[in-house]
């Protein structure tokens, strides 16, 4: 389904607990002066209260929204992966959808992790490059790989990516591609090159993603720049091209997932988009098309990591092992329609039959070797370089 999602703490999330507690203890004691410190006291006790909630051997997984199978819309509903996991393992799980942007999530957890305080969740699912950043900063635990035998089922290229060369700190959750999405009723033709996005005919009707690695990555590849060993100097032409596109008014807006709407409305003639979104959109609107540009698309993946101070590493390992079983993985794929990191899912989907079986033949979920050959993943950016990339990108996007 979609990749960048809404932050939606469930009723039992940390913030919520603290609120109840605060309301309970100080009630409506509006004593004025006493209140500031009282509120602050309530805040500071939040930090200990937060992990207490997961202390009773509960496993807490914080993920993006719409990123797991939810039978009948119920997160813990019967037959869903969360439900079946709880039944199979006896391990209670708390699943929240608290991630809606890598950087924002980082901003949220950074103050705590930099002070060696637990952030609450036992598993978080940030995108590979952010996972790499956390790994470099030493803010994630080493994974107990010996307790995750099913990791052997993973697609090899995703187990030891440049962001985690030893493969000890992160394991993939789902993967996807960024390419060109277009509305044929506006463009009048199928687009299959990055240069099409800079076609003056579409001036003011082009969208780009706020996700820097996808936008800059696609443009860089079209300029023949290799993503495996990125340096700011090497990528300067890509930034220049993007900047030119903005300055000339060619590029209308940078968006998150909301490009979907702009594309359907015709506000965007074409844009950079994510495979999963477009699969869905084209199902209801045949004018919407998606292509991996000739020069190549980006391959990204989100990972599971255990932040430092997590209280339930055992349970986390158990969960990972569970979802790397192709049978379970296939159920998730059938729902979220992204690329599964687990080998054998295609076969399992076929076994499931119906709509799920149809997905097994989708190039966007199971790209063939020739498609895969055109995809590239970003290599690691060191801290300094990344700051340069972010700052330059922010300048172009207007921030």
């Amino acid at each position, binding site marked *: 389904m979609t990749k960048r999602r809404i932050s939606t703490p469930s009723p039992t999330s940390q913030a919520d607990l603290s609120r109840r507690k605060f309301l309970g203890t100080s009630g409506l004691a509006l004593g004025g002066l006493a209140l500031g410190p009282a509120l602050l006291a309530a805040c500071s006790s939040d930090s200990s209260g937060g992990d207490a909630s997961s202390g009773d051997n509960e496993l807490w997984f914080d993920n993006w929204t719409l990123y797991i199978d939810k039978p009948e819309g119920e997160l813990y509903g019967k037959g869903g992966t969360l439900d079946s996991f709880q039944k199979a393992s006896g391990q209670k799980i708390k699943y929240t959808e608290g991630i809606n942007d890598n950087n924002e999530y980082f901003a949220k957890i950074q103050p705590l992790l930099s002070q060696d305080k637990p952030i609450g969740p036992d598993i978080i699912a940030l995108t590979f490059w952010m996972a790499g950043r956390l790994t470099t900063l030493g803010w994630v635990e080493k994974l107990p790989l010996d307790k995750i035998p099913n990791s052997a089922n993973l697609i090899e290229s995703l187990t030891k990516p440049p962001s985690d060369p030893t493969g000890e700190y992160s394991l993939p959750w789902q993967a996807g591609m960024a390419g060109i999405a277009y509305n044929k009723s506006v463009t009048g033709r199928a687009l299959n090159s990055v240069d099409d996005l800079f076609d003056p005919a579409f001036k003011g009707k082009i969208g780009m993603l706020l996700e820097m690695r996808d936008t800059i990555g696609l443009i860089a590849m079209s300029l023949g720049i290799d993503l495996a060993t990125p340096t700011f100097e090497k990528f300067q032409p890509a930034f220049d091209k993007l900047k030119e596109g903005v300055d000339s008014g060619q590029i*209308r807006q940078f968006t998150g997932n909301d490009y979907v709407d702009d594309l359907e409305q015709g*506000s965007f003639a074409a844009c950079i988009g994510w495979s999963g979104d477009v699969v869905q959109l084209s199902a209801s609107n045949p004018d919407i098309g998606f292509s991996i540009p000739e020069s190549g698309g980006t391959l990204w993946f989100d990972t599971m990591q255990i932040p430092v101070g997590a209280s339930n590493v055992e349970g986390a390992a158990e969960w990972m092992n569970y979802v790397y079983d192709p049978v379970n993985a296939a159920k998730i794929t059938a729902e979220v329609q992204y690329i599964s990191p687990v080998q054998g899912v295609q076969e399992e989907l076929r076994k499931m039959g119906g709509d799920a079986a149809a997905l097994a033949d989708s190039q966007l979920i199971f790209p063939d070797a020739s498609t895969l050959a055109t995809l590239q993943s970003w290599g690691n950016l060191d801290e300094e370089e990344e700051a340069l990339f972010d700052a330059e990108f*922010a300048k172009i996007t*207007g921030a």
Partner: protein
Amino acid sequence: MAADTSSDDRGLRKGKWAPYGLLSPGILWLVLFFLVPVMILVRTALSSKASRFANPEFSWQFSNFTSAFTDYGPQFARSFLFAGIATVSAILIGYPLAYWIATQGGRWKNLLIGLVVVPFFTSYLIRTIAWTSLLKDDGVILNVIHAIPFVPQDFRLLATPAGVIGGLTYNFLSFMILPIYVSLEKIDFRLTEAAADLYGTPWQAFKKVVLPLSMPGVFAGSLLVFIPAAGDYLNNRYLGSPKTSMIGTVVQDKFLVQFDYPVAAALSLVLMAIITTMVLIYSKFLGTEGLAV
């Protein structure tokens, strides 16, 4: 004289401790959660960071301020330009309405002015998103505009400065109408009748009497529109484009995405300093009263 003052001035008290006692909870709160944070912001703005994720170290790093100007001049300029245009538009739209309510409202005055506040009770964000729906390229409004001859086919409002300024004007219009209305309400309109005798035309009477008397309301409204408009980033997010981004966008991004706290703090402080200067000049001439709408 002092002996009798207790009965003058509508019974104003000379307090020794009582006023400070009444003030202390509120003021203390503001000191703790407004003044102290701003001080911390000043400190951060003068700090440097060893690396991206290191904590800022205080080091009299004035370069943060210079880079705030050199790197983000356009955004500053745009913020003040857009906010300025929005303020003027709000005066042009809001004044006649306030005047109409004050002079023609009769017994419905309270209801009419209340209606001005009603949009304010729907979330600002949702109103802005509603504008994206109204203004979209194939939406109702644009279709009407495109039906007008000589309007270029690629004319649009979303993702243009006009869209952003329109959103700013709309969102803060109530802040303009209310103080103007308040100042117009204070005017004894018999004055205009007297003035009509002296100056002849109603327009002259308006210009010479009503307008000057309502200027405090216009000034207060201008501040109340200009200040939030200059620091806004939501209108740009929904109605603008990279080419219309304002300083608020930069500050938000620097804080929450790039972690460049020192420069972000410097940017905020520059914005605050400019606006505070405006406010102090304002309050020197017109007092703080008009700002409490």
